Protein backbone atom coordinates (compact mmCIF):
# COMPACT_ATOMS: atom_id res chain seq x y z
CA UNK A 1 0.00 0.00 0.00
CA UNK A 2 2.72 2.42 1.00
CA UNK A 3 4.54 1.55 -2.21
CA UNK A 4 1.53 2.45 -4.33
CA UNK A 5 1.06 5.72 -2.48
CA UNK A 6 4.74 6.49 -2.96
CA UNK A 7 4.52 5.89 -6.70
CA UNK A 8 1.32 7.93 -6.99
CA UNK A 9 2.98 10.82 -5.13
CA UNK A 10 5.96 10.81 -7.46
CA UNK A 11 3.64 10.72 -10.48
CA UNK A 12 1.59 13.57 -9.06
CA UNK A 13 4.66 15.71 -8.53
CA UNK A 14 6.00 14.85 -11.97
CA UNK A 15 2.61 15.58 -13.50
CA UNK A 16 2.42 18.89 -11.66
CA UNK A 17 5.90 19.79 -12.78
CA UNK A 18 5.09 18.96 -16.40
CA UNK A 19 1.89 20.98 -16.29
CA UNK A 20 3.77 23.96 -14.81
CA UNK A 21 6.42 23.67 -17.51
CA UNK A 22 3.87 23.45 -20.33
CA UNK A 23 1.82 26.32 -18.99
CA UNK A 24 4.76 28.66 -18.69
CA UNK A 25 6.84 27.74 -21.70
CA UNK A 26 7.55 30.60 -24.05
CA UNK A 27 6.71 30.58 -27.75
CA UNK A 28 8.96 28.21 -29.68
CA UNK A 29 11.60 29.56 -31.98
CA UNK A 30 11.11 29.13 -35.72
CA UNK A 31 14.77 28.21 -36.04
CA UNK A 32 14.33 24.46 -35.87
CA UNK A 33 11.24 24.35 -38.09
CA UNK A 34 11.17 23.53 -41.79
CA UNK A 35 9.47 26.06 -44.05
CA UNK A 36 6.26 24.89 -45.67
CA UNK A 37 6.90 27.23 -48.61
CA UNK A 38 9.96 29.01 -50.00
CA UNK A 39 9.11 32.09 -52.06
CA UNK A 40 10.65 35.25 -53.41
CA UNK A 41 9.44 38.54 -51.94
CA UNK A 42 7.86 39.46 -55.30
CA UNK A 43 5.99 36.14 -55.47
CA UNK A 44 4.65 36.57 -51.95
CA UNK A 45 3.39 40.08 -52.54
CA UNK A 46 1.90 39.11 -55.91
CA UNK A 47 -0.05 36.29 -54.27
CA UNK A 48 -1.49 38.67 -51.67
CA UNK A 49 -2.19 41.44 -54.17
CA UNK A 50 -4.05 39.08 -56.46
CA UNK A 51 -6.25 37.37 -53.91
CA UNK A 52 -5.81 37.88 -50.18
CA UNK A 53 -8.08 35.00 -49.16
CA UNK A 54 -6.28 32.50 -51.38
CA UNK A 55 -2.89 33.79 -50.24
CA UNK A 56 -3.95 33.43 -46.60
CA UNK A 57 -5.06 29.88 -47.21
CA UNK A 58 -1.61 29.12 -48.50
CA UNK A 59 0.62 31.21 -46.22
CA UNK A 60 -1.24 32.44 -43.11
CA UNK A 61 0.10 30.93 -39.91
CA UNK A 62 2.65 28.82 -41.78
CA UNK A 63 6.44 28.82 -41.50
CA UNK A 64 7.72 30.25 -44.79
CA UNK A 65 11.13 31.19 -46.16
CA UNK A 66 11.23 34.48 -48.10
CA UNK A 67 14.10 35.47 -50.38
CA UNK A 68 14.58 39.11 -51.19
CA UNK A 69 16.78 42.17 -51.28
CA UNK A 70 17.00 44.28 -48.16
CA UNK A 71 15.21 47.59 -48.52
CA UNK A 72 15.55 48.76 -44.94
CA UNK A 73 16.79 47.58 -41.55
CA UNK A 74 14.59 48.98 -38.79
CA UNK A 75 16.03 48.99 -35.26
CA UNK A 76 13.90 47.85 -32.33
CA UNK A 77 13.97 46.13 -28.96
CA UNK A 78 12.96 42.60 -28.14
CA UNK A 79 10.80 41.23 -30.94
CA UNK A 80 10.54 44.58 -32.70
CA UNK A 81 13.55 44.75 -35.01
CA UNK A 82 12.54 44.48 -38.67
CA UNK A 83 14.18 43.66 -41.98
CA UNK A 84 12.13 45.08 -44.85
CA UNK A 85 12.42 43.21 -48.15
CA UNK A 86 11.82 44.82 -51.51
CA UNK A 87 8.86 43.27 -53.32
CA UNK A 88 8.94 45.52 -56.38
CA UNK A 89 6.15 47.80 -55.15
CA UNK A 90 6.25 51.37 -53.89
CA UNK A 91 3.77 51.03 -51.03
CA UNK A 92 3.81 47.36 -50.12
CA UNK A 93 6.88 45.49 -48.95
CA UNK A 94 7.60 42.30 -47.01
CA UNK A 95 8.05 43.28 -43.35
CA UNK A 96 10.04 40.65 -41.52
CA UNK A 97 9.84 41.08 -37.75
CA UNK A 98 13.03 39.50 -36.45
CA UNK A 99 13.49 37.29 -33.43
CA UNK A 100 17.08 38.42 -33.34
CA UNK A 101 18.61 41.17 -31.26
CA UNK A 102 19.35 44.36 -33.26
CA UNK A 103 22.97 44.44 -32.08
CA UNK A 104 23.62 40.83 -33.06
CA UNK A 105 21.91 41.34 -36.43
CA UNK A 106 24.23 44.28 -37.17
CA UNK A 107 27.18 41.94 -36.66
CA UNK A 108 26.08 40.08 -39.77
CA UNK A 109 27.15 43.16 -41.74
CA UNK A 110 24.09 42.89 -43.99
CA UNK A 111 23.08 46.12 -45.65
CA UNK A 112 20.53 47.66 -48.00
CA UNK A 113 20.52 45.89 -51.36
CA UNK A 114 21.91 42.59 -50.03
CA UNK A 115 20.03 39.41 -50.88
CA UNK A 116 18.89 37.46 -47.85
CA UNK A 117 16.60 34.54 -46.99
CA UNK A 118 14.47 34.91 -43.88
CA UNK A 119 12.30 32.22 -42.30
CA UNK A 120 9.29 33.07 -40.17
CA UNK A 121 5.54 32.77 -39.69
CA UNK A 122 3.32 34.66 -42.12
CA UNK A 123 0.72 36.70 -40.24
CA UNK A 124 -1.03 38.18 -43.27
CA UNK A 125 -1.16 41.45 -45.13
CA UNK A 126 -2.13 44.89 -43.88
CA UNK A 127 -0.08 47.46 -45.83
CA UNK A 128 2.92 45.15 -45.95
CA UNK A 129 2.95 41.37 -45.94
CA UNK A 130 4.17 40.58 -42.43
CA UNK A 131 6.38 37.62 -41.57
CA UNK A 132 6.87 37.21 -37.83
CA UNK A 133 9.55 35.78 -35.50
CA UNK A 134 12.04 35.62 -38.37
CA UNK A 135 15.48 34.05 -38.37
CA UNK A 136 18.16 34.41 -41.02
CA UNK A 137 18.59 31.27 -43.11
CA UNK A 138 22.31 30.76 -43.55
Amino acid at each position, binding site marked *: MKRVLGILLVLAIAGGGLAYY*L*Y*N*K*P*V*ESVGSKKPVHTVSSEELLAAYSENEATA*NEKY*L*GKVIAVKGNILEI*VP*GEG*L*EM*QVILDAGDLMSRI*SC*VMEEDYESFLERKLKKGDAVTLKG*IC*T*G*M*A*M*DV*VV*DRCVVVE
Partner: protein
Amino acid sequence: MKAFGFCLLIAVCALPVKAQKYFTRDGQITFTSEAPMEKIEADNNKVSSVIDLETGDIEFAVLIKSFHFEKALMEEHFNENYLESSKYPKATFKGKIENVSALKASTSAKHALNVSGDLTIHGVTKPVTIEAQFIVDKQMILASTTFAVLVADYDIEIPKVVRDNVSKEVEITVDMQYKPL
Protein backbone atom coordinates in the same frame (compact mmCIF):
# COMPACT_ATOMS: atom_id res chain seq x y z
CA MET B 1 -1.63 96.08 -59.45
CA LYS B 2 0.36 93.35 -61.13
CA ALA B 3 3.06 93.68 -58.47
CA PHE B 4 0.47 93.30 -55.73
CA GLY B 5 -1.00 90.21 -57.39
CA PHE B 6 2.46 88.74 -57.77
CA CYS B 7 3.31 89.42 -54.13
CA LEU B 8 0.06 87.78 -53.05
CA LEU B 9 0.91 84.71 -55.09
CA ILE B 10 4.34 84.46 -53.47
CA ALA B 11 2.78 84.92 -50.04
CA VAL B 12 0.34 82.07 -50.64
CA CYS B 13 3.14 79.80 -51.79
CA ALA B 14 5.07 80.60 -48.64
CA LEU B 15 2.26 79.28 -46.41
CA PRO B 16 3.18 75.99 -44.73
CA VAL B 17 1.58 73.17 -46.68
CA LYS B 18 0.36 70.38 -44.47
CA ALA B 19 0.18 66.92 -45.96
CA GLN B 20 -3.36 65.58 -46.24
CA LYS B 21 -2.84 61.86 -45.60
CA TYR B 22 -0.80 60.35 -42.78
CA PHE B 23 0.02 56.71 -42.21
CA THR B 24 1.90 54.19 -40.15
CA ARG B 25 2.80 50.52 -40.56
CA ASP B 26 4.23 50.11 -37.09
CA GLY B 27 1.48 51.24 -34.77
CA GLN B 28 1.30 49.63 -31.35
CA ILE B 29 -1.69 47.97 -29.73
CA THR B 30 -1.55 46.24 -26.36
CA PHE B 31 -4.40 44.38 -24.79
CA THR B 32 -4.61 43.43 -21.14
CA SER B 33 -6.88 40.98 -19.39
CA GLU B 34 -6.91 41.16 -15.60
CA ALA B 35 -8.60 38.17 -14.06
CA PRO B 36 -8.53 36.81 -10.47
CA MET B 37 -5.97 34.16 -11.32
CA GLU B 38 -3.90 35.81 -13.96
CA LYS B 39 -2.93 38.93 -15.85
CA ILE B 40 -2.56 38.35 -19.59
CA GLU B 41 -0.94 40.88 -21.85
CA ALA B 42 -0.15 40.86 -25.56
CA ASP B 43 1.55 43.36 -27.86
CA ASN B 44 1.18 44.03 -31.55
CA ASN B 45 3.73 46.35 -33.16
CA LYS B 46 2.63 46.00 -36.77
CA VAL B 47 -0.62 47.93 -36.74
CA SER B 48 -1.34 49.73 -40.01
CA SER B 49 -3.40 52.89 -40.07
CA VAL B 50 -4.18 55.88 -42.28
CA ILE B 51 -5.60 59.32 -41.38
CA ASP B 52 -7.02 61.74 -43.92
CA LEU B 53 -6.85 65.20 -42.33
CA GLU B 54 -9.12 66.65 -44.99
CA THR B 55 -12.07 64.33 -44.37
CA GLY B 56 -11.26 63.09 -40.86
CA ASP B 57 -11.33 59.50 -42.13
CA ILE B 58 -9.27 57.09 -40.05
CA GLU B 59 -8.71 53.38 -40.65
CA PHE B 60 -6.86 50.61 -38.84
CA ALA B 61 -5.85 47.08 -39.81
CA VAL B 62 -4.55 44.74 -37.09
CA LEU B 63 -3.11 41.33 -37.96
CA ILE B 64 -4.22 39.05 -35.12
CA LYS B 65 -1.37 36.57 -35.54
CA SER B 66 1.09 39.41 -34.95
CA PHE B 67 0.13 39.65 -31.26
CA HIS B 68 3.02 38.49 -29.08
CA PHE B 69 2.40 36.75 -25.78
CA GLU B 70 4.87 35.70 -23.11
CA LYS B 71 3.55 32.16 -22.95
CA ALA B 72 3.12 29.80 -25.91
CA LEU B 73 -0.06 28.23 -24.55
CA MET B 74 -1.74 31.62 -24.25
CA GLU B 75 -0.75 32.62 -27.76
CA GLU B 76 -2.09 29.31 -29.02
CA HIS B 77 -5.44 29.60 -27.19
CA PHE B 78 -5.81 33.21 -28.24
CA ASN B 79 -5.34 32.36 -31.91
CA GLU B 80 -7.01 28.97 -32.12
CA ASN B 81 -9.89 29.19 -29.63
CA TYR B 82 -10.73 32.79 -28.78
CA LEU B 83 -10.07 34.93 -31.85
CA GLU B 84 -9.96 32.05 -34.37
CA SER B 85 -7.35 34.01 -36.29
CA SER B 86 -7.09 31.53 -39.15
CA LYS B 87 -10.72 32.32 -39.92
CA TYR B 88 -10.57 36.03 -39.01
CA PRO B 89 -6.96 37.12 -39.61
CA LYS B 90 -7.62 40.85 -39.17
CA ALA B 91 -9.33 43.18 -36.75
CA THR B 92 -10.27 46.48 -38.37
CA PHE B 93 -11.57 49.90 -37.54
CA LYS B 94 -13.09 52.29 -40.06
CA GLY B 95 -14.36 55.66 -38.89
CA LYS B 96 -14.01 59.38 -38.56
CA ILE B 97 -12.23 61.77 -36.23
CA GLU B 98 -14.78 64.32 -35.02
CA ASN B 99 -13.75 67.97 -35.25
CA VAL B 100 -10.64 67.04 -37.22
CA SER B 101 -10.24 70.68 -38.27
CA ALA B 102 -8.70 71.26 -34.83
CA LEU B 103 -5.78 69.07 -35.95
CA LYS B 104 -5.40 70.77 -39.32
CA ALA B 105 -4.71 74.19 -37.84
CA SER B 106 -2.69 72.87 -34.91
CA THR B 107 0.98 73.09 -34.05
CA SER B 108 2.19 70.97 -31.13
CA ALA B 109 -1.04 71.27 -29.19
CA LYS B 110 -2.75 68.31 -27.55
CA HIS B 111 -6.32 67.56 -28.56
CA ALA B 112 -8.84 65.14 -27.08
CA LEU B 113 -11.11 64.18 -29.92
CA ASN B 114 -13.82 61.58 -30.37
CA VAL B 115 -13.33 58.90 -32.98
CA SER B 116 -16.49 57.15 -34.18
CA GLY B 117 -16.82 54.21 -36.49
CA ASP B 118 -17.10 50.47 -36.97
CA LEU B 119 -14.86 48.15 -34.97
CA THR B 120 -14.64 44.61 -36.35
CA ILE B 121 -13.16 41.85 -34.19
CA HIS B 122 -13.60 38.10 -34.73
CA GLY B 123 -15.87 38.81 -37.69
CA VAL B 124 -18.31 40.88 -35.60
CA THR B 125 -18.79 44.58 -36.34
CA LYS B 126 -19.95 47.03 -33.68
CA PRO B 127 -20.26 50.84 -33.83
CA VAL B 128 -18.03 52.51 -31.25
CA THR B 129 -17.07 56.00 -30.15
CA ILE B 130 -13.73 56.34 -28.43
CA GLU B 131 -11.99 59.43 -27.13
CA ALA B 132 -8.36 59.67 -28.25
CA GLN B 133 -5.50 62.08 -27.63
CA PHE B 134 -3.89 63.65 -30.70
CA ILE B 135 -0.73 65.72 -30.92
CA VAL B 136 0.45 67.29 -34.16
CA ASP B 137 4.23 67.47 -33.80
CA LYS B 138 6.06 68.99 -36.76
CA GLN B 139 5.43 66.55 -39.60
CA MET B 140 3.96 63.78 -37.43
CA ILE B 141 0.64 63.03 -35.81
CA LEU B 142 0.78 61.16 -32.51
CA ALA B 143 -2.39 59.43 -31.42
CA SER B 144 -3.13 57.39 -28.32
CA THR B 145 -6.08 56.00 -26.44
CA THR B 146 -7.17 53.34 -23.99
CA PHE B 147 -10.60 51.74 -24.05
CA ALA B 148 -12.39 48.63 -22.84
CA VAL B 149 -13.99 45.91 -24.89
CA LEU B 150 -16.46 43.30 -23.66
CA VAL B 151 -15.21 40.02 -25.01
CA ALA B 152 -18.75 38.65 -25.39
CA ASP B 153 -19.73 41.58 -27.64
CA TYR B 154 -17.58 40.08 -30.38
CA ASP B 155 -18.79 36.49 -29.94
CA ILE B 156 -15.54 35.52 -28.25
CA GLU B 157 -16.15 32.55 -26.01
CA ILE B 158 -14.14 32.04 -22.88
CA PRO B 159 -14.59 28.46 -21.60
CA LYS B 160 -15.77 28.07 -17.99
CA VAL B 161 -12.55 26.22 -17.18
CA VAL B 162 -10.42 29.34 -17.68
CA ARG B 163 -12.96 31.89 -16.51
CA ASP B 164 -10.75 32.87 -13.58
CA ASN B 165 -7.80 33.31 -15.91
CA VAL B 166 -9.34 35.47 -18.63
CA SER B 167 -11.47 38.51 -17.82
CA LYS B 168 -14.78 39.34 -19.51
CA GLU B 169 -13.59 42.85 -20.21
CA VAL B 170 -10.30 43.50 -21.97
CA GLU B 171 -8.42 46.78 -21.93
CA ILE B 172 -6.97 47.94 -25.25
CA THR B 173 -4.20 50.55 -25.46
CA VAL B 174 -3.39 52.18 -28.79
CA ASP B 175 -0.19 54.11 -29.50
CA MET B 176 0.42 55.44 -33.00
CA GLN B 177 2.95 57.69 -34.75
CA TYR B 178 1.78 58.82 -38.18
CA LYS B 179 3.99 60.25 -40.92
CA PRO B 180 2.87 62.07 -44.05
CA LEU B 181 2.01 59.77 -46.95
